[in-house]
């Protein structure tokens, strides 16, 4: 007696993973043969796993089949290759050399744990084949919970036309392609949640982000970039943040202090709170928000929107202590000592001086201070003529604010040209639209007072010289071009720098009072103290600050857990399309102009501080979102969401389809079947009339594993009147199938009895020619179905039409000879069996003869023998069979194959 199984050194290929293929493979493997099973879809199980119950015992199909599927997965003699099919076969002596095409799964099956996190996040919604299109699935999916292999698959059908440069351009890698797809599909809440999953301040970014994504949007190369920011705002506005649940998190015992409640501090606090740490923010101002609260004017970012976002962060458990200025109300060291880690996000709130004469005059005001005063509701007298000095966003904000405060003439003085302006171009455009003049290539020389108050400003014209360190051309004064203008107020907006005096004894500072950090880890020179945002980089954008806060949160959390810091790499550079690609895409998709977001009329909006941008309506949002190139394709758009979520690291977009060659000694094919598509039978109204469906669709509708969980619902209601029609596409010369499909009589009886069982007061009719209840227990089942009150009518309906309260079936009862009109809610067509579509392809490469209908031709005494020696067919491949017959024929095919390969042992 041997300890190891006596192997038969023979290999058999089984093509098809339905019940036939499964049985054949298990039988052969049970004899010690090495079996390779190819299944074209992502899971084995075939048609049977789609069934709710099987006749005549009405036991559950899943329960009986799934143990067999598991057996296939566990059997050491079976190698299961899903998403694969043979594409070429060569005879090799008695055996075969088979070329196999393996479609890439894009998921590493060794790593995937079938946890489902990926499909929860996937933004691409598709019809579920398993549920016959009645339900939905995602582009990354497991077709049903019992799938074997129980691993996710990415349904990637074509390459994404663009490079999704938007995602790479975003400092926090927002899944732009993903949320645009969701908006396109009308799934606004999902879009919001997707945005929210990486961005703690989406409402802010939907309004004031400088949208680097739009700058690089590949669509921009075709016609115009997508309105990404405005679409984000649309998604945000369509969701009420109060309904956003507070996730349950496991609390740690670690405490983190954050200095500054600006965007970086809030983002950092948000992410740390989600990790379970206790977070306290110290804010010098009376209200949190930093520059968002005190610098950005109301007409761009309503305070209410900001407050809602901050409230949510508070609801996560973050404590914000306002009016606590570090260095004034509390010392930095006190904080450092009483917390486990500190994040400094104090921003850059100190204005930069011009260093010219008269700067200290009343009437010359720092821009940031000006905005803060306005935002705090303080009253400011500007006078009629206001000059704003600077070309950044702050300067624009100051100018537009001044206009709204009632100044008659507002001018912007900028020392370079429009091209060099750091302000967002749409802001500049809005400014110009509102009638504000920009004096380019001009710089003030001195402010002139009269009676101690500002009266005039002397300026000088500039020209552009050599580029400076920032890459912009340096402006050079044109001697003798001085001139003066009358002004009531001058607002200087020349940039800001951090106020970091309180740190100078503890932490190394850099140029312009910025905080020095290790760029890879985010930590300052003091252990446990991290910093980010404008305080580190000098003045920059909101989204950069958020990114810095988020990155810091990751490493703070790692630091608290004692894990080594994560070293951030520089972002992937956004890619543009080549010219060739651009012209190809133009040809393929045409061009479509951008739909601009609605704004308030200029004459109206300058009167007050109400929000300028009105936003999209639903239709325009969908229309604009559907311009996204990534949404042009079916299937996976490679947005990276699943990859980001998968903690096991199983997603791999780089996988490639493979073609391999393998040797086999015998082949069993179990190609399965297709079902007749009754659309061509116009009189039955399939696809035309609502309420007409096929048997397999009804099967999914009634299945406990189906989209309704087993409740039979139609239009949200429980239908009461059912009409089943047998022999649709069987025994019918017109449809080219003279044969009997052998299963429809019984599955109809099964459906009818399920209906009677679940809906007690249902009326059920079945139209038939002959009731072929020939199998074991079938006749009895047919009888009991009749006894349950199902009405059998001999004769096939001539027509189905729409009635007042449902569908009207016109049928001649051949037994009574009467012409009946029956009104019902649902008509279910027992569609017949057709040869599997790909059988032709298979027959071609395997040189198999087919019969007149396209089933594989076999010899009745050797029911699995095909015209090619060594290739055996089973199940519906050679003609209609019910499950027991399929199992028997699979056993027979396996035994014939066994005989074939054993012959020379």
């Amino acid at each position, binding site marked *: *007696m*041997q300890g190891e199984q006596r192997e038969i050194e023979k290999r058999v290929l089984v093509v098809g993973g339905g019940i036939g293929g499964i049985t054949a493979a298990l039988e052969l493997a049970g004899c010690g043969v090495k079996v390779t099973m190819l299944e074209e879809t992502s899971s084995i199980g075939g048609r049977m796993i789609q069934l709710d119950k099987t006749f005549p015992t009405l036991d559950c199909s899943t329960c009986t089949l799934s143990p067999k599927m598991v057996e296939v997965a566990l059997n050491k003699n079976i190698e299961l290759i899903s998403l694969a099919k043979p594409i070429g076969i060569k005879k090799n002596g008695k055996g075969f050399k088979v070329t196999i095409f393996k479609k890439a799964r894009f998921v590493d099956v060794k790593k995937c744990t079938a946890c489902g*996190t990926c499909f929860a996040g996937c933004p691409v919604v598709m019809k579920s084949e398993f549920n016959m299109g009645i339900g939905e699935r995602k582009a990354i999916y497991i077709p049903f919970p019992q799938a074997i292999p129980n691993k996710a698959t990415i349904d990637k059908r074509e390459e994404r036309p663009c490079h999704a440069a938007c995602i790479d351009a975003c400092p926090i890698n927002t899944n732009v392609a993903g949320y645009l797809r969701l908006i396109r599909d009308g799934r606004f809440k999902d879009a919001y949640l997707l945005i929210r999953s990486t961005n703690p301040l989406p409402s802010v970014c939907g309004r004031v982000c400088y949208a680097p994504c739009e700058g690089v949007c590949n669509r921009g190369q075709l016609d115009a970039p997508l309105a990404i920011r405005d679409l984000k705002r649309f998604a945000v506005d369509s969701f009420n943040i109060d309904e956003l649940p507070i996730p349950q998190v496991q609390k740690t015992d670690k405490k983190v202090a954050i200095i500054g409640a600006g965007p970086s501090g809030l983002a950092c606090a948000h992410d740390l709170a989600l990790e379970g740490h206790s977070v306290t923010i110290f804010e010098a101002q009376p209200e949190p928000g930093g520059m968002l609260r005190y610098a950005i004017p109301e007409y761009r970012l309503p305070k209410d929107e900001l407050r809602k976002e901050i409230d949510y962060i508070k609801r996560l458990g973050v404590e914000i202590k306002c009016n606590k200025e570090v260095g004034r109300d509390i010392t930095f060291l006190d904080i450092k000592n009483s917390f486990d880690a500190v994040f400094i996000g104090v921003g850059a709130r100190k204005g930069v001086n011009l260093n010219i004469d008269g700067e200290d005059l009343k009437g010359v005001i720092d821009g940031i201070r000006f905005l803060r005063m306005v935002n705090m509701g303080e009253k400011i007298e500007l006078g009629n003529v206001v000059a704003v000095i600077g070309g950044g966003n702050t300067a624009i904000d100051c100018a537009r604010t001044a206009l709204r405060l009632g100044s008659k003439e507002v001018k912007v003085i900028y020392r370079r040209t429009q091209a060099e302006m750091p302000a967002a171009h749409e802001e500049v455009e809005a400014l110009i639209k509102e009638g504000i003049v920009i004096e380019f290539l001009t710089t003030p020389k001195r402010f002139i007072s009269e009676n101690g108050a500002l009266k005039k400003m002397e300026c000088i014209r500039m020209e552009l010289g050599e580029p400076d360190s920032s890459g912009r051309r340096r402006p050079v004064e044109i001697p003798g071009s001085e001139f003066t203008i009358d002004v009531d107020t001058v607002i200087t907006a020349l940039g800001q720098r951090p106020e970091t005096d309180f740190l100078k004894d503890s932490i190394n500072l850099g140029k312009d009072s910025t905080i020095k950090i290790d760029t890879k880890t985010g930590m300052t020179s003091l252990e446990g103290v991290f910093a980010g945002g404008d305080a580190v980089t000098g003045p920059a954008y909101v989204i950069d600050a958020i990114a810095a806060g988020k990155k810091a949160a990751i490493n703070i959390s790692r630091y608290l857990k004692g894990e080594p810091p994560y070293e951030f790499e520089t972002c992937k550079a956004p890619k543009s399309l080549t010219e060739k690609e651009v012209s190809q895409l133009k040809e393929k998709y045409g061009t479509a102009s951008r739909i601009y977001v609605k704004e308030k009329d200029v004459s109206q909006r300058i009167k007050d501080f109400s929000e300028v941008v009105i936003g999209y309506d639903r239709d325009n949002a969908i229309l604009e979102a559907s311009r996204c190139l990534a949404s042009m394709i079916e299937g996976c758009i490679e947005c990276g969401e699943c990859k980001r979520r998968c903690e096991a690291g199983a997603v791999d977009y780089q996988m490639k389809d493979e073609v391999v060659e393998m040797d086999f000694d015998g082949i069993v094919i179990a190609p399965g079947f297709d079902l007749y598509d009754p659309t061509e039978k116009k009189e039955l109204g399939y696809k035309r009339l609502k309420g007409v469906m096929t048997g397999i669709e009804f099967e999914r509708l009634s299945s406990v594993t189906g989209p309704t969980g087993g409740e039979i619902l139609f239009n949200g209601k429980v239908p009461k009147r059912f009409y089943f029609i047998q022999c649709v596409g069987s025994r019918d010369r017109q449809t080219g199938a003279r044969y009997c499909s052998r299963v429809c009589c019984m599955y109809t009886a099964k459906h009818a009895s399920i209906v009677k069982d679940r809906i007690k007061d249902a009326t059920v009719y079945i139209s038939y020619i002959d009731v072929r209840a020939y199998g074991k227990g079938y006749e009895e089942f047919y009888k009991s179905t009749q006894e349950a009150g199902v009405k059998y009518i001999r004769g096939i309906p001539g027509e189905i039409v729409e009635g007042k309260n449902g569908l009207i079936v016109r049928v001649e009862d051949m037994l009574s000879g009467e012409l009946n009109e029956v009104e019902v809610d649902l008509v279910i067509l027992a569609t017949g069996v057709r040869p599997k579509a790909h059988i032709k392809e298979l027959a071609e490469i395997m040189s198999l003869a087919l019969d007149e209908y396209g089933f594989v031709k076999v*010899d009745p*005494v050797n029911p699995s023998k095909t015209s090619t020696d060594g290739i055996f067919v089973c199940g519906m491949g050679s003609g209609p069979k019910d499950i*027991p017959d399929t199992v028997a024929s699979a056993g027979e095919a396996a035994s014939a194959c066994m005989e074939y390969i054993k012959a020379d042992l």
Partner: protein
Amino acid sequence: MKAGIFICHCGHNIKHTVDVRRLSEYFKKIPGVEVAIDYAFVCSEPGQDIIKESIENKHLDRVVIASCTPSLHGDLFKDLLKKSGINPFYLRRVSIREHCSWVGDDIEANTEKAKRLILSGLYSASHYIPLEEKMVEVNKSALVIGGGVSGLNAALFLAKMGIKVYLVEREEELGGHVRLLNSVWPSKRSGREIVAEMVDELNRLANVDIYTNTTITNFEGFFGNYQVTLKKGEDEKKIIVGGVVVATGFVPFDPSIKPELHYNKDKRIVTTLDLEKGLETLEISKKPRVAILHCIGSRDETIGKSYCSRICCINAIKTAEALKEKYPESYIESFYMDVRAHPKGGEEYFESVQEKGVLFTRGNVAEIIPTDKSIIIRGEDTLLGEVYEKEFDLVVLSIGMSSPVENKALGQLLKISLDKDGFFLEAHIKLRPFDTAVKGIFIAGSCSGPKDAEESINHGKASALKLFGMLNLGYTFVDPFISYVDPKRCSGCRQCEEACIAKAIKFDEKLRIVKVEEAACMGCGLCNATCPSSAISLKGYFDSYISDEISGLLEIA
């Protein structure tokens, strides 16, 4: 006990709603627990390494893994224990994902639940005993009962595969009913010819012993080692076989059971089977009027045969065709309930015979009245709704299949069950049509219900393959999760024996206790629950295991 507890985070899946760190801290303090570790992915390679190292360094003798549901991961962890040098049955898997972290939202409650679940696993595991997958040798020989096409094909296949085959046939000649057929549809070849080919091939094989006129009188043992007594005339012979294919076929329905059919009383009333002997014997004119009656002995509650015999519609069509061919001017009318021409090509065959002029009338015959001149048939045409009365010269009864009465005795001998119609009962009507509840005994062909020749061949070969797969190994592993009798505890009350579904329990008359035939035990544990003193218990599910599992779930720890 030195237990190691390994708690999986499953990424976020468990960690998200279960405080895994608290759990590992808690279990570190439980007596008997040597190691308690929580880890991101216990199933990953580094995770497995942690377990392996812990077993080796801390000399663990119990491993409790709290992770996903035990049915996932197959033998992964069992193999790991084996590799680490301890008995793989010292493993306990606890599901804290499907049964805990995924089904509750509250971290506190989930953590408490996980704690209880792991605790109960630990308590249970503390009682574990090492188990072994025992090997039993298997005789590479098979008994095939019945020499019809099913049995012949089973015997042929097994013999070709090198299995010693004993083919036992009750009748004098092999070939069963197919041998009697003039032509076998759809191949249209003669049954005698088809059978002869098979028998010739069988005779050429050296490893087949054929016993005709033989019955089975005794049958004992278990898979791999069945002792069978064959009886031919007065001679008895004992053989040992590894497994059995039962292919006892069917008996044709005898219409004389229904006197109203006048069968055997009037020569003009014959069965389809009678006509297979040839149409020459018929004493009818050149222009006969023939009635063919369907469903004789099928779909008939009055005689307790509610089932459809599956083959008789095609037989009726075939008979009509043969008559039409021989008597082209004949008038043939077939009376049916439903025409079940479901086999491949059947529908086309049905149409072609209709085209040849055979009439099909829906409606069963109510009365057959033989007169001197003719046979009058009365009935109602359910399609036309008319009552008819017609005269015929010949009435052909398309008879169905009945189960042989001998099935009952054979079933008792082999301990396999019959269905309500006296056919053998398959283990699962859909997926295990050849299996019986007894390991190593398969059923094939019409003995499990009516089948045509093609289906019977399918069955014969397929069931033989299943048996071959089991025999070919040369040994069988006895699942370790089988019942075990404590001889000191057993009172010999035989309650377990009576209840046992697999009939795997035998009573030892001498010791007055029961013993388990390990190869036959299915491992359901019914005996264990039946025995009041748990003298018989199911390995892997001992009372102590489950009892302490209950305690673990409920105790306030």
